């Protein structure tokens, strides 16, 4: 087979993989939204489905490498064309990763926004003291079990959040904060990738970008759950220490 014919087939293969990825992601978006609604805003089934979808995308990426090594590289005359054709697969792999990340954010932040909205509605509902029947107003930005004192009879009532309210801390906070700081997260990931590519002075740059992202991310969490403010310094220090343990010196 000539180089031209090999390149033609390789291009068609890459286009097919790209098309399959786009179809997968479109169906993932639709299916995950459906699972969320079907399960009364429980994000667990949707999360399980997304893990399987990620796996499928990983297999598609692996197929690119396998095809390159088994069929394309051996079919090309060594030289410039090999590098050019390999670059096409690398570009598609990066593209798949980017599309996956964007879809994941869209699915999960979308679900988080929906759950958070419903949780706020639930907390704003009338709740009555089971001792005297008087209305007990609940704190709005607190999503765990707690004691609430009845303003009328002073009895202590125990509030136990349902699955939607409980999901705010367990699921929504991270997703919504990530969505709000997405650009900074991308920058941080990009600078960290540069370390692996051995770019000079890249650790300092990556550390700065990570600190910038984490600061914004942790503050975005505090906007939803103000109680987290007490742990801001500790959380930031812990995450930065993890980075430094990975890239010492």
């Amino acid at each position, binding site marked *: 087979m000539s180089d031209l014919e090999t390149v033609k087939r390789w291009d068609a293969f890459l286009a097919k993989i790209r098309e399959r990825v786009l179809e997968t992601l479109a169906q993932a978006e639709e299916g995950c939204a459906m699972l969320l609604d079907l399960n009364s805003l429980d994000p667990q089934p949707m999360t*399980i489905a997304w893990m399987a979808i990620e796996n499928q995308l990983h297999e598609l990426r692996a197929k690119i490498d396998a095809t390159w090594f088994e069929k394309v590289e051996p079919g090309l005359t060594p030289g410039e064309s090999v590098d050019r054709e390999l670059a096409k697969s690398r570009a598609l792999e990066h593209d798949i990763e980017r599309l996956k990340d964007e879809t994941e954010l869209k699915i999960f932040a979308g679900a988080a926004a929906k759950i958070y909205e419903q949780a706020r509605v639930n907390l704003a509902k009338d709740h009555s003291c089971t001792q005297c029947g008087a209305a007990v107003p609940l704190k709005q930005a607190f999503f765990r079990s707690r*004691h609430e004192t009845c303003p009328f009879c*002073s009895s202590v009532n*125990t509030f*136990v959040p349902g699955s939607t309210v409980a999901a705010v801390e367990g699921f929504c906070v991270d997703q919504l904060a990530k969505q709000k700081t997405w650009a900074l997260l991308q920058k941080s990931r990009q600078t960290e990738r540069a370390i692996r590519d051995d770019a000079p002075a890249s650790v300092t740059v990556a550390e700065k970008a990570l600190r910038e992202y984490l600061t914004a991310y942790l503050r975005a969490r505090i906007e939803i759950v103000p109680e987290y403010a007490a742990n801001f310094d500790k959380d930031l220090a812990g995450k930065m220490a993890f980075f430094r343990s990975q890239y010492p010196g």
Partner: protein
Amino acid sequence: MTAPADQLQALVEQANRLALSSDEPGWDTFVRSVGLTPLSAEQRAFIRASGVPKLKGMLPVELRVVLEAIRARFAPMADSESMKTDLLVLVDREMLRFVAAAQPPKSVLPGIFANAQRTAVRLGPQADSLSAQKCTCCGAARPAESDLRSCTFCGQSFFPPGAGLPA
């Protein structure tokens, strides 16, 4: 000058490509170029609302009419037996090709959603609850600022021994 058979093939290819696309203005221009009047948006909406299978692109009936017109135009120009045979089967063959290509995409995620729905573990109660715990001995509730571990009025423990609470 291009042979009639080549002209026919090029025109049929163009018809099929445009019919599969969502380029309505492009399709309408093509329909006019073969001497026909395209359907109006209302006519298309009416046919689609009648429950036709969901295919992408233009309505199959539109392509059929266009292919019939192309066949009629090229019939007098058929200069070989193969072209005459080709014209005989042209409409049916191209319609089958169109319908096959216009099928909506099959699910590329077979079973994933059903499996997730079936196997996911659901935790915790669905609804929020608010309740004042009452003493099992005297029925009193727990007043604010009191020791919440035992009843202020009769001393009964609110929690069974061994519940893992501080003494």
